[in-house]
């Protein structure tokens, strides 16, 4: 697409799609912004009126707001740390030549293909359940008191489940990156007297930085909106111990039928996501430049 004419033509042909995508994004966002300035409760139809920033005020002063913000960031950060570290480890292991490599790789990818609500239910009822769960059985087998995961450590349990789901994604991306690492570089380092640890630190890790950046950016987007896992396990509780911003918005708009407050929460979540994104791009975005 070098000539002026072909560039114009390509723009013209692209424009319907761009316009559609733009509307697709801007209409819901605009409506959410609009609702967030209304008193809009589904239990009191016909009483909608403009209230300015009142919804935002309520949202920020909600006793659940600060815990939800902290929980959201903890969840995102916790899952990122586990998946990146675990992903690097698994990728390095899977990169070793071994028997049954193909099957093992498919097995590793499997958790990613399970629906979030299903995997959360499996974890809740079959693994972490204090009465019927495998972990409880194991604890009893060792003569220990079974641990009630969702009551004692709700957020940590959810982080575990979500990390389990996202570990395959990180592993897969990092494994592909690892496979593009030049073998001769490794051999050169070996001849230069670098042992496995130094080779990992000086060659593998810098080589993986770009893939790690991609993993962190993509996962952050999805982790900020984790919902199903919370809904089917702890329902945000006990108290607000596992309530995230997404879940708080859900509780306010769906459980209290307050569309205005929910919308305000939604906008706050959007702004938070953007802050996180800007922060991340500042911090690690330079890794994406060639």
């Amino acid at each position, binding site marked *: 697409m070098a000539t002026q004419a072909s560039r114009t033509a390509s723009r013209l042909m692209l424009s319907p799609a761009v316009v559609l995508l733009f509307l697709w994004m801007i209409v819901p966002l605009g409506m959410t912004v609009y609702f967030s300035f209304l008193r809009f409760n589904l239990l009191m139809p016909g009483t909608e009126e403009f209230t300015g920033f009142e919804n935002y005020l309520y949202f920020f002063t909600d006793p659940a707001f600060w815990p939800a913000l902290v929980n959201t960031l903890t969840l995102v950060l916790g899952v990122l740390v586990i998946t990146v570290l675990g992903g690097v480890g698994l990728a390095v292991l899977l990169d070793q030549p071994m028997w049954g490599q193909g099957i093992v790789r498919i097995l590793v990818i499997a958790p990613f293909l399970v629906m979030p609500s299903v995997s959360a239910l499996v974890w809740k009822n079959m693994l972490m359940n204090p009465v019927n769960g495998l972990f409880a059985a194991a604890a009893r087998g060792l003569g220990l008191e079974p641990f009630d995961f969702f009551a004692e450590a709700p957020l940590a349990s959810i982080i575990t489940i979500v990390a389990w789901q996202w570990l395959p994604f990180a592993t897969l991306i990092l494994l592909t990156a690892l496979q593009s690492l*030049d073998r*001769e*570089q490794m*051999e*050169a*380092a*070996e*001849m*230069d*007297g*670098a*042992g496995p640890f*130094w080779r990992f630190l*000086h*060659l593998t890790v*810098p*080589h993986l930085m770009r893939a790690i950046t991609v993993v962190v950016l993509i996962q952050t987007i999805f982790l900020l909106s984790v919902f199903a896992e919370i809904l089917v396990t702890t329902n945000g509780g006990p108290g607000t111990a596992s309530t995230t911003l997404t879940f708080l918005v859900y509780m306010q708009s769906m459980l209290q039928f307050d569309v205005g407050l929910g919308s305000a929460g939604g906008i706050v979540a959007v702004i938070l996501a953007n802050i996180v994104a800007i922060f991340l791009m500042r911090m690690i975005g330079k890794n994406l430049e060639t």
Partner: protein
Amino acid sequence: MGEIVLSQVKKSFGGISIIQGIDLTIEDGEFVVFVGPSGCGKSTLLRLIAGLEDTSSGTIAIDGRDATRLPPARRGLAMVFQSYALYPHMTVGKNIAFPLRMAGMPKEEQERKVEAAAKVLNLTPYLDRRPSQLSGGQRQRVAIGRAIVREPSAFLFDEPLSNLDAALRVSMRQEISELHQSLKTTMVYVTHDQVEAMTMADKIVVLNAGRIEQVGSPLELYKTPANLFVAGFIGSPKMNFIEGAEAAKHAAHTLGVRPEHVDIAADGPWKGVVGISEHLGSDTFLKVQVEGIGPLTVRAGGEVRLRHGDPVSLAPQTGKLHRFDAAGKTIAA
């Protein structure tokens, strides 16, 4: 010091024998070149010496010490790879310093050595650049720099110049020869470019299908090839091979004569017709279809005015014929 002795070294990959019993002594300070056709096992042999591959059997001794089971880092050898294998995330200076850093050398000493190496290789202005910001020749020099700072007992080169363009290849070739003259360290150099082999080597090792065909100085190989393979491999253009009645006249199964050892002479015994001719300015290479013998390549002077289809008489220079028996071995004169 840098004497490397291979005895009965064998290597097979998954049951396929690639290196089939190599006995070779590389003297201290020698420039040894491995040549051979693609896939004959040159790189594999070099990697066996480096320790990047394990031998299947046989022993490798470096400076009189058995190094067969030593890890690469402990063999005291440095290798320069075809792809340069520079560390892309480190500056040129850090690349060169890397082996020193791994050896735990103090910082000031590292810097001193890196600067000295950079000066020898004309890399001083580039020490703060990344490898990706360098040209091919500069990258190659960084790779060499990384090798020389370690002061290894021998350098191993695996086709280090094959990614460079022709002009750069010639100048880097001379730089490496120069380096060998000043360092006097053993160098083992793999190439499939026989010009590199002939110009740089003290000793050439001709490999074929995992075996050594002949070992000798460039001129020995040129003048007295041990067999058909070496005769055909060393020398450019290739030696002409003649079979049948003409060979039988000289009591040989195959007769070999190099293009430069055939003269155009009005009373020559071989009559033929000129085919295509390649004019290089200094030389002209003629393809001549000789009656009863077949096509021959002939080197003539730069000013030859023969055209396609012209008749020509040829005479081989006396004493420059090579005779081979049915097994391809040279028959002693």
